[in-house]
């Protein structure tokens, strides 16, 4: 399984793989981050997220959540998205990062996380140049850890959220 459904919700969700409360940078409650298996019916408004970015056993983290506006259609192949992916490959101080897929051709935003005492490093998230972003403090039980992508690839594998980097099947020599 390469990806999960992901959403930011006002109410506590059910049937999730992982869920955790979150707060904005001023400490105001901002709802819940939630992820569901793709075998689950797609929750309304949810987006695809790289499965490695979510861990129900993960530590608390700061998250930069950059989301396209409702109805905004941005192609994954847009040069601005390619630029942001290159920036991500060149500079990876993140604990986890995933683009958020809306459908097979459009991007719904990006999820970028750090485990640090301050969210300051998230100001370098390149996707904040593309989409309106908010910084959230996310309680333990949601954010995963993943190694930096190998590089230099910026293409998605069978429509999975980047940086997931495997096709469903691989043929040997």
């Amino acid at each position: 399984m390469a990806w999960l459904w992901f959403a930011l919700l006002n109410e506590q969700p059910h049937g999730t793989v992982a869920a955790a409360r979150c707060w904005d940078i001023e400490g105001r409650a901002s709802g819940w981050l939630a992820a569901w298996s793709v075998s689950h019916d797609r929750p309304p408004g949810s987006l695809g997220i790289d499965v490695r970015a979510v861990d129900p056993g993960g530590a608390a983290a700061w998250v930069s959540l950059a989301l396209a506006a409702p109805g905004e259609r941005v192609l994954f192949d847009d040069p601005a998205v390619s630029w942001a992916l290159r920036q991500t490959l060149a500079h990876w101080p993140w604990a986890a990062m995933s683009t958020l897929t809306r459908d097979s051709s459009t991007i719904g935003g990006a999820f970028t996380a750090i485990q640090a005492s301050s969210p300051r490093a998230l100001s370098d998230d390149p996707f904040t140049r593309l989409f309106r972003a908010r910084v959230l403090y996310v309680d333990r039980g949601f954010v995963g850890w993943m190694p930096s992508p190998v590089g230099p690839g910026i293409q998605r594998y069978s429509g999975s959220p980047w940086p997931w980097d495997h096709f469903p099947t691989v043929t040997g020599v």
Partner: protein
Amino acid sequence: MQHDLTQVLRARPAPGETFPDLALPDHSGNPRRLSELAGGDPLLLQFYRGFWCPKEQAFFRGLVRLQDEAEVAYTRFVSVSVDPPEVAAAFRAGLGARWTFLSDADRTYVEELDLLETTDTLHRPYAPTVFTLYPDLTIHAAYNGYWFWGRPTLEELRQDFRHITRTIRPDWEVPR
């Protein structure tokens, strides 16, 4: 007889053989394995002397140009040296490279791979060598870059990756 056996054990990896599954820290200090880095894609595996070598700088400039093609070609690059991770990270950033650098600062593999550049007793670096690998780490081609012209041209690398990709992708021919 023992001497002969040592020679065999330390033979440089050659085409058709499986490259050892190196376990080394990357430029951020995180432990990585070569098999994990290759994933399911063709892999360029480059051993280089160090940031200080003008020949490496010249070769890297070519690889940085090639990454603009590799980034859309489901092909991965990995560069290995004896530089510590923080030095590799600084060199990588200066080059504008967007692929993974591995650090063998302890020289864990340099003798096992028979890639020690014995003529440089100051740095004891890897001898410049480039391999193109299948996803299962089978070696497609090996290039001895001790002399600069022994290194692969970008065109040779394109040809290697075309061959590997055609072999491993069942849909190389347009699906009908």
